[in-house]
């Protein structure tokens, strides 16, 4: 978190027109996060928009508690993703049922594809905590803030998720030990 963030937040709380620097700082990160969670470019734009609008609307009630403003935005975005799906989704055809039932096949070129394939079949909660911690580069305290749990709980979740990821890699014939 930047040292100037508390001041930027206070200014934006007094005047929405001062929200610009905070928006510039986070809009691409939030968009990337939403895209990674949804895989849908149009939806990612909509949710990003809704996230910042809701953030601005709720900003007068925001209280700075030493964590980054970004964690709060991620938390809003996370809920907006759910709301958007509940509101707009249409039934998904089940043509790919078999694909869902079985672990995805490894990609044609090696270990990173296997990692992504293993990642894709993890439970949603695992993918969420790993995405926040490693793809979004939030620290453990920020992930805890986003998920509304303790830092210790984040450690446990990350550890369990990584263990499951390791198991999935082994199923794909890609034991982690091979790549140290």
């Amino acid at each position, binding site marked *: 978190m930047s040292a100037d963030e508390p001041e930027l937040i206070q200014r934006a709380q*007094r005047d*929405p*027109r001062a929200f*610009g620097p905070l928006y*510039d700082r986070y809009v*691409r990160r939030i968009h*990337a996060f939403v*895209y*990674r969670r949804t*895989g849908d*470019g149009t939806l*990612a734009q909509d949710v*990003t928009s809704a996230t*910042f*609008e*809701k*953030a*601005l*609307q*709720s900003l007068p*009630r925001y209280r700075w508690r030493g964590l980054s403003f970004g964690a709060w935005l991620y*938390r809003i975005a996370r*809920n907006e993703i759910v*709301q958007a799906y*509940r*509101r707009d*989704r249409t*039934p*998904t055809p*089940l043509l790919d*049922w078999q694909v*869902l039932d079985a672990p995805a096949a490894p990609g044609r070129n090696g*270990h*990173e594809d296997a990692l*992504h394939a293993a*990642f894709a079949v993890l*439970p*949603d909660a695992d993918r969420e905590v790993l995405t926040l911690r*490693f*793809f979004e580069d939030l620290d453990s305290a920020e992930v805890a803030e986003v*998920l*509304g*749990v*303790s*830092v*210790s*709980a*984040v*450690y*446990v*979740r*990350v*550890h369990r998720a*990584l*263990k499951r990821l*390791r198991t999935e*890699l082994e199923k794909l014939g890609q034991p*982690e*030990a091979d*790549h140290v």
Partner: protein
Amino acid sequence: MSEDRDDWGRRLDAGETTDVELRLASRLRAARPASPPLPHHVEAALRERLLSQPRPSLWQTLNLRWWAATAASGLVLALVVAAFMVLSRPDLISPPTAQPAAPDSVAALPTWPAPTPFQASAGDWVTLTVLAPAVGAELSPDVEVVTVRADYRLASAPSARLRLELRSRLDFDSTDWGSDLTNLVDRQFVDVVQGTGASTVALALDRKTLARFPAGSELVLSAHLLGDDGAVYFAQVFETLSFTAPDSLRGCVFDPARDRLEIVSVTPGTGGLLSETNPRVRVTVRYQLSVPQPELVTLVGGLANPAWSGTAATTHEWLPNLGAFMAYALPNASGTATLDLYSWYASEATRGIADETGRVAVALALVCGNEMADPLLLYGRLYPEHTVEFAPELLRRAAPDAVSVVAASPAPGLELPAGLVQFDVTVAVTLTSAPTATLVVGLGDDARAGTEVHPRSGPLFAIGSTPVTVTAAEPRVTVRFFADADRVAEQLAGREVYVFANLSRQTESGWVRLAHTLDHDFHYRHAPAAVAMRCAATAGPDEARITAASIAPGPLPDEPVVIDIDVDYTLSVPAATLLLGFTSPAADPSDPSRSLVDGVTVIIYGGSGRTQFSLTYAPDDPLGWLLRSVAQDDVVALRLGIRCGVPGGETRWLFSDVPAEYRYTLPARATPAP
């Protein structure tokens, strides 16, 4: 263990790669998947829209509107309270703790749904004490109930209903989550009469409910003393509880890409006919869940209009579009399940959603969390390709429900003599909205204040018959009841009393009145002299004993059943009320104020006699769920009580018992038969 966990976490935060998982974390960081950039014009347009919003006024900044509204409503309520204090009787005692019906407690919850009108006097109050678990504790995954004692005093009405609710409430400092602010967890009612009393109630807080809690939510416990018709309340209290749900139970996550459901077969197939003799639609599905704990998820199925979109944002928006819906607990994270939908649950609502030709389509949903407490809608869809038709007899709705008094004995105009008078009342019934309904006939008046009509029992102040079940095939029904002049004079204020008939039906949301009449052509008079209550003159013994039950104690089947129970009694006073209902096996036999679930009452008269009760148990209706919440290890008991006096006067319990030999075991899970 905790130190190990935190030590591993610190090594993770430091970027170490000293074990397999830490190395995998390092790989994951390096393998961040790409995402397309946010188009520049989108980013710029959003920026402009956000930054062009006007500067908030001081009013908005300080959120003064809410404070002003709160203060105004508080002032109004305070004036109402003050007015009632002036007008109320001086002999009303104060509550044991400082919990008058305080408007401030409403202000503490700004997003609470608008309450029913507040009609308190200084003599009405209710307080809450949480008996278990300890407030502030982290709940274990095994915690299933919150046991609460409500102490109350009711002065403003002869009788009332005590409503206890448990809700979850989010942290108001986060964002505005709309309706999620007040998720109902459980709600129970206790019938109370004028005076001071206490009632202990168990509110369900099961794994499914906990799983639905958003992170950061709190539990809010409330109690309201409601008028019998639910239109007013006399006192209320809110308590915020700080239980913490274990992380392991926050299982209701949402992953639209992985929650899947598809129909394997529907019997009868498209175009099949549902009738009284062929009532079942059997739906077999394949499913796949994203939540880590499948036991949190329920498959809900029902019938809906084929033209409906099949989409809704929440379960509460989704379910009202369905009729004849059933729930099925899913045993595994993926697999097949079979759900039976029955046309005999095709209530008026169900038939109302059929299209012009009587067609309905299958609709299915996956919900996570307690089905009765705003579960998370994981997946919901209408399947218009799977339709069935209601047979014409199920759709016949030629006339509205109606009830009228045709004849009564004794002849109208009689001044009621001392002692018991047998009334035989013939009622014409037009029943079109449901196959069966409940009829209550009796004497009531319309002169006394508080002539609200209870949906099931008829007028609040009445001498009524035992509820009888009527069917659409019986256009005329003769009902017998007894009234004695003393009770009529005690209960009914008017010099003239009239015959009433009340037709009602139980639905998923409670009792609904279908038709009602209070017929002035059938009038009787009673002696105006004051009648002293005779309950104090009990000479004993006053007792009751179950002598037979149509279903022997033990396991109850996993389907709706009626248990006919014979009770022998001995009564030393001229008249009293005998009550029977389900209760918790842990209930104190000597504490008759303990709530009954599906309690049934009959009036009994002095001497010895036998009467029969019919208790209904339906696993999937609200009473079934309520019963489950008071059960201990799925076991419920029966409570018997004899109460002397009637609502509106002093009452006294003459007998109370929870017989140890009558214990019933609820089915492991309320599901339709496979």
